[in-house]
C-alpha cells in the first residue's frame, strides 16, 4: 500500500501533456472561480446573515455585506436559546465517540490484519455490510431497548450508537494501514519479549498514526453531524445536541434567520478546525480504497 501511494504521488506530479492556449487558460481560471463561488458562497452567506440585525435580515433587496455588523445573534443563541448547553452535549458525545472508535477500530483492524480468524473474512464483509441498513430499522428496536433500560436522554446511548456507525469504515481503514506495515516488525517485537498486545501498542500503532488521525476525524464528524438518532433518543431539552437545536428552530412559525445562521456558524466551527488541521490525512485515508482495484 505504501508502494502504491508512492506511485500515485508520482503519477500526480507528471500529468498528461496538456497543450492549451491562452483561451484554454482563461477558461480554466473562469472554471476555478466558478467552483470557488459555488462551494463557498453558501457558507459566506450564512456568515453574513449571522452578523446582520433582524431589520437588515428582512430588508429587500438583500445587502451583500452587513451594514451594522453585530455579534448579538451569537450571544442570544448561546445564552437565551441555550446553544451553549447543546454545544457541550455535542462535544462530550462526539469526543467520547472518537476515543472509543480509535481504540476499538485499531484493535479490530489489527486483529483482522494479523490473525487468521475462523470466519474472519465473512466477519469483515459483515462489518462492511452493516453500513447498509437504514437508520430507522436500527432505531425502533434500539429505542425500545433504551427505554426499557431507562437509558433515554443519556450520553452513553448516543455514544454507543455513533461508535457503531463509524466503526465499519474505521475498521477497514485501520486494517488497510496495518496491512501496509511489514509483519516482520511485530515478529521482531515478539521475539524481543513483547506480548501480542505489546507488539501492537509499541511497534505497529505508532507507525499507523495517519490512519488513527483519519479514524478520529471521521468518527468525530459522524457523531457531530448525526441527527435522526439524536432527535429520537434525546428528547429532554437539556440533552439536545447542536443539530437537534438547529432543526427544532427551523420548525417555528416565524424563523429568526439571523439567529439561526449564528447557530449554523457555531455548529460548523469544530468541523472547520478539524479540516484545516487534518484535511490531508482524511483525503488520503478516504481515497486509499478507491484506487486499489
Amino acid at each position: 500500500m505504501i508502494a502504491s501511494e508512492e506511485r500515485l504521488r508520482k503519477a500526480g506530479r507528471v500529468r498528461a501533456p496538456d497543450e492549451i492556449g491562452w483561451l484554454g487558460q482563461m477558461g480554466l481560471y473562469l472554471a476555478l472561480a466558478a467552483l470557488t463561488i459555488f462551494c463557498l458562497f453558501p457558507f459566506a452567506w450564512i456568515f453574513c446573515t449571522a452578523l446582520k440585525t433582524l431589520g437588515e435580515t428582512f430588508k429587500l433587496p438583500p445587502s451583500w455585506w452587513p451594514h451594522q455588523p453585530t455579534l448579538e445573534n451569537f450571544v442570544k443563541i448561546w445564552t437565551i436559546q441555550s446553544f451553549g448547553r447543546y454545544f457541550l452535549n455535542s462535544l462530550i458525545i462526539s469526543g467520547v465517540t472518537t476515543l472509543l472508535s480509535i481504540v476499538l477500530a485499531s484493535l479490530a483492524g489489527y486483529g483482522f490484519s494479523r490473525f487468521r480468524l475462523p470466519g474472519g473474512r465473512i466477519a469483515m464483509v459483515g462489518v462492511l455490510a452493516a453500513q447498509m441498513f437504514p437508520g430507522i430499522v436500527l432505531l425502533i428496536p434500539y429505542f425500545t431497548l433504551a427505554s426499557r433500560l431507562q437509558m433515554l436522554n443519556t450520553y452513553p446511548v448516543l455514544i454507543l450508537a455513533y461508535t457503531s456507525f463509524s466503526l465499519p469504515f474505521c475498521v477497514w481503514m485501520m486494517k488497510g494501514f496495518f496491512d501496509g506495515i511489514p509483519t516482520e516488525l511485530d515478529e521482531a517485537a515478539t521475539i524481543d519479549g513483547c506480548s501480542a498486545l505489546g507488539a501492537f501498542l509499541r511497534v505497529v500503532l505508532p507507525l499507523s498514526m495517519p490512519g488513527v488521525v483519519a479514524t478520529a476525524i471521521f468518527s468525530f464528524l459522524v457523531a457531530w453531524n448525526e441527527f435522526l438518532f439524536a432527535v429520537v433518543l434525546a428528547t429532554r431539552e437539556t440533552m439536545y445536541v447542536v443539530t437537534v437545536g438547529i432543526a427544532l428552530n427551523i420548525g417555528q412559525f416565524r424563523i429568526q434567520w439571523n439567529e439561526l445562521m449564528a447557530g449554523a456558524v457555531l455548529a460548523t466551527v469544530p468541523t472547520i478546525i478539524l479540516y484545516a488541521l487534518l484535511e490531508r490525512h482524511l483525503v488520503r485515508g478516504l481515497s486509499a480504497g478507491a484506487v486499489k482495484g
Partner: protein
Amino acid sequence: MPRSTRSSSKPSIPAVTGIPTPGDPRPRGGRWPRWLVGFAFVAPSLLVLGTVIAFPVMDTLRLSLMETRSKDQTVFVGLANYARLIQDAEFWSAFKNSISFTIGSVLGHILLGLAVALLLNQRIPFRPVFRIISLVPWMFAPVVVAMTWRWMLDAQLGVINFLLARLGLSGPFLWFENTRLALPAIIATNVWRGFPFATITLLAALQAIPKEQYEAAAVDGASAPMQFRFVTLPNLRFALIIIATLDTIWNFKHFDLIQVMTNGGPAGATEVLTTLAYKVSFENFEFGYAAAMGVVMSLVLLATTVVYVRRIL
C-alpha cells in the same frame, strides 16, 4: 477498500492455530491459542456492532410481523403489515420519491464530481487550496446544509429568488410550497452537499492513471475527447462503480435534508420512505408497520450492497 488480507497472502505468519512453528509470534508462555488472541482484538468491535446493528436488524424483522396495539401490547399478525403496505398509496408515493431522489442525487454527484475532478487534475496553481475549497460543502452537517439552503431558497427573502429576478426570470418561485419544485430543490441541495466525495475519489483515481497511456494515445493521433473516452473513462471504471453503489445506498436511506427542509411536504411531494417510516413510528407509534417498511427498504439496499461487495472482493 483494501482487498487482500495480509494473513492470507503472507506465508510468514503461521496459519494453523495451536501448533508452534519456527518464528511463531505467540505470546510467551503460549497459554492462549493464537486464534483466541486474534479474537480478543476483534471482539469489542463485534460486540458494539452486535448491540446497535445485528440485534436491532433481527428485532425489526420480528417486529414487522407484529401489530402495536398500545405501549406494551403487541400482537402477532403474520404478514398483515406487508399486505397493508401493498395497498398503501402513501407508501408507493414515498417509494417513488425515494427512487427519484436517489437517482437524481447520484447522477448529480457523479457528473459534478467528475467535472470538478477533471478540473482539479489540470495544471493549476494552488491545487491543494482548491481541493480544500471543493471539500467545503461536504463538511457541513446535513442539518446545517438544509437550513442554509432553506434560507437561500426562501420565497420572499431568499438570495436565489433575488438573483433569478435580476436575471429576468419571473418569480417569486415558491420552492417549498410548490409540489413540482420542492423535490428538485432538495435534490439540488443534496447534489451540492454530496459531490465532494465523488470528486476526491475520482481525483485520486485520475492521478493514478499512468501518463504512458496518454502518450501512447497521442502518438496514435487521438484527440483530447478521444483520449478522455478511451484512456480516462476506462481507468475510472472501478472508482465510478464504487461511487455509484455507495452513493445509492447513502441516498436511498437519507433522512436529514428532507426532514429538516420540508418534513415531507408540501402534500407529500417530498415524502420519502425514511421520513414516512419516521412519522409512522415516532409520531403514530405504529412500530410494527414502520418495521415492515424498514424491511422493504433493507431488501432494496441489500440488493445494492450485494452488487458492491461482489465488485470489491
